[in-house]
């Protein structure tokens, strides 16, 4: 793998992690209100998939999409200002945490209804196929979405018409608070793609190299006319479903369901309004960022000191983003009405 790609992915993951930790802090301070779904734990999925995509590909995301937007290239300032609900936000303060849109980067939105990203991505892929363009569409969703009708309906139509669509399941094992064995009759999500004649692969979603490789292969098959592809990324979120959710259901439920033998449970049991400490994470094995760092150091791409430099860089970006967001003006009602009527142009209605 190219050194630049590795560096970019590590930087993306570190930036996403630092950004989300700062967002949690700003939420506690009251600068961010409402729902805030954080990405720590799942960074390898976004970094691997989005770095494998080309600039003319489309990304359709979910409500846990700050990291996706950052990795796609939306400036951290604009993502943070959107979390603050300010005019300088990427969606002008109209969308908020769950609705980041960046049309210039073909980042086609975060959608807050579970399973809603599937038909949207399906439609974009239909538009691409109809015009016979060499583009692909990437559709993110979680394991909770696979029990929605839209998931099955969209897989069916994508398979039927051979659309250039990459389905990416971020399987973090929880549909909000319900563990996958309690929400799915078949817990191997990738198997479901077989019902719609879509090639599927399950990868370790904590290993960005494996995610990236799988995404490259899948996108190559799509561009070669192979139709839709499906990647299930086995991952885990370190926090609760959102900042409003301490994730306290997990120790109780998992102790019952998995007994004490599940190594991840050890870290989770302590989770309240914080992430596990580095020491706790070390106990459960290298995390996604640690894994990539180790690989890069081992392969001679990166000196350990470089990681510290990268961390400082992303910290500076996040600090700047938070300052920008704080200083960004509040949007006006005039702006809200202008957005509401943004497509009216000079059309005479009456």
């Amino acid at each position: 793998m190219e050194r630049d790609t590795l560096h970019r992915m590590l930087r993306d993951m570190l930036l996403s992690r630092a950004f989300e930790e700062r967002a949690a802090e700003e939420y506690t301070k009251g600068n961010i209100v409402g729902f805030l779904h954080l990405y720590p734990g799942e960074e390898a999925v976004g970094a691997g998939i989005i770095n494998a995509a080309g600039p003319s590909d489309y990304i359709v995301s979910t409500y846990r999409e700050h990291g996706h937007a950052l990795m796609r290239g939306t400036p951290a300032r604009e993502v943070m200002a959107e979390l603050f609900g300010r005019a300088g936000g990427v969606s002008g303060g109209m969308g908020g945490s769950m609705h980041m849109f960046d049309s210039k980067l073909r980042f086609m939105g975060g959608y807050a209804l579970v399973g809603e990203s599937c038909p949207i991505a399906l439609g974009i892929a239909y538009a691409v196929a109809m015009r016979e363009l060499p583009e692909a569409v990437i559709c993110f969703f979680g394991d909770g979405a696979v029990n929605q009708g839209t998931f099955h309906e969209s897989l069916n139509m994508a398979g039927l018409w051979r659309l250039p669509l990459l389905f990416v399941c971020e399987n973090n094992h929880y549909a909000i608070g319900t563990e996958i064995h309690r929400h799915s009759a078949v817990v191997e999500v990738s198997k479901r793609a077989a019902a719609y004649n879509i090639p599927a692969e399950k990868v370790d979603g904590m290993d960005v190299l494996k995610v990236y490789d799988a995404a490259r292969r899948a996108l190559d098959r799509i561009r070669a006319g192979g139709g839709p592809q499906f990647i299930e990324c086995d991952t885990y979120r370190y926090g609760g479903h959102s900042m409003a959710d301490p994730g306290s259901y997990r120790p109780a439920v998992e102790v019952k369901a998995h007994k004490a033998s599940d190594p991840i449970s050890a870290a989770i049991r302590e989770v309240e309004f914080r992430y596990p400490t580095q020491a706790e994470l070390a106990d459960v094995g290298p995390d996604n960022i640690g894994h990539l760092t180790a690989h890069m150091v081992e392969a001679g791409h990166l000196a350990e000191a470089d990681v510290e430099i990268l961390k400082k860089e992303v910290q500076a970006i996040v600090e700047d983003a938070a300052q920008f967001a704080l200083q960004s003006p509040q949007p006006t009602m005039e702006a809200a009405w202008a957005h509401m009527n943004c497509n009216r142009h000079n059309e005479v209605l009456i």
Partner: protein
Amino acid sequence: MSEELLYWQALNRAMDAELAADASVFTLGEDVGLVGGSYRVTEGLMAKYGEWRVRDTPISENSFTGLGVGAALAGMRPVVEIMTINFMLLALDSIINAAAKIPFMSGGQFSMPLVIRVPGGIAHQLGAQHSQRLEHTVMNVPGLRIAVPSTPQDAYWQLRQSIVSDEPIILLEHELLYFSKGAVDMLADAPPMHRALVRREGRDLTIISYSRHAILSREAADQLAKEGIEAEVIDLRSLKPIDWDTCATSVEKTHRVLVVEEDCRFAGAGAEIAATLAERCFDSLDAPVQRLAGLDISTPFNGALEAATIPQVPDIVAAAREMCRPTQGNMAGTKSASSPKPPNSGKATAAEKAA
């Protein structure tokens, strides 16, 4: 130069014209391709434009409507046909949460040139699950526009206007109108899509209606004329936005309003019209705005009972006649005439103030 066309044929011509004019236009829905649509609206179009532009879909309303939303985001102009409005209930997430909100939520970054065509209303004995109107549901959603064509000419104009607009528009087509005939001038300049039209002029009261009941209201007005009551009939043609100016101008002339709708009375379009005209035209009204609407009942399968649940022409005639009936001490048609039922409390107060 106009041509006599059936309502479905007018829609078919409009669809054909837009498919020919713009390569980004396409249509999709259940049986719209090979079969040509349940009401023949897309007949012959798949043969002419191919299956990518006239696409038969599986029975997956929420996702093929969402497909339309996604395609619109990517620069296409999709026309989604939902086979009947009853199935639109399954697509409301795509319509309300996605189509109506994305342009706004994105801070104005995306256009949403999406048209959703929906046959609906009470046809002939289709049972409760296939005999309903849902205009009240979509009227309450910011970001949507709703057109309700009642004539072949309007069907032609409003479908073409919907397709070229960059905003999401729902076209509510009445199932009993598809085989109604009317003159269509394909070269004439269309009025703005949401302008109401005065179908018949009159001085004694204003009947405001839309879709099939605008046609029935006109029939009722012809009968009322034989009794010496001249009703002005307004066909709204649109439920969002509503052309209040045309309504208010008429109220200032007639001083009485009867709203006729097929939809259930409770919290329906008529309620919105009555409330707004009461606020806006209080000083011009001689009587409270009256509503004649569908009953708050699921539509019975039995034909006679079905007919009894929605306003028919004789009901419109009777309601209008009652509103124009002279009351004790008053003359019909004068400014102070009032409806005896319910008591004209508001106007009496205004009259007292004037005295």
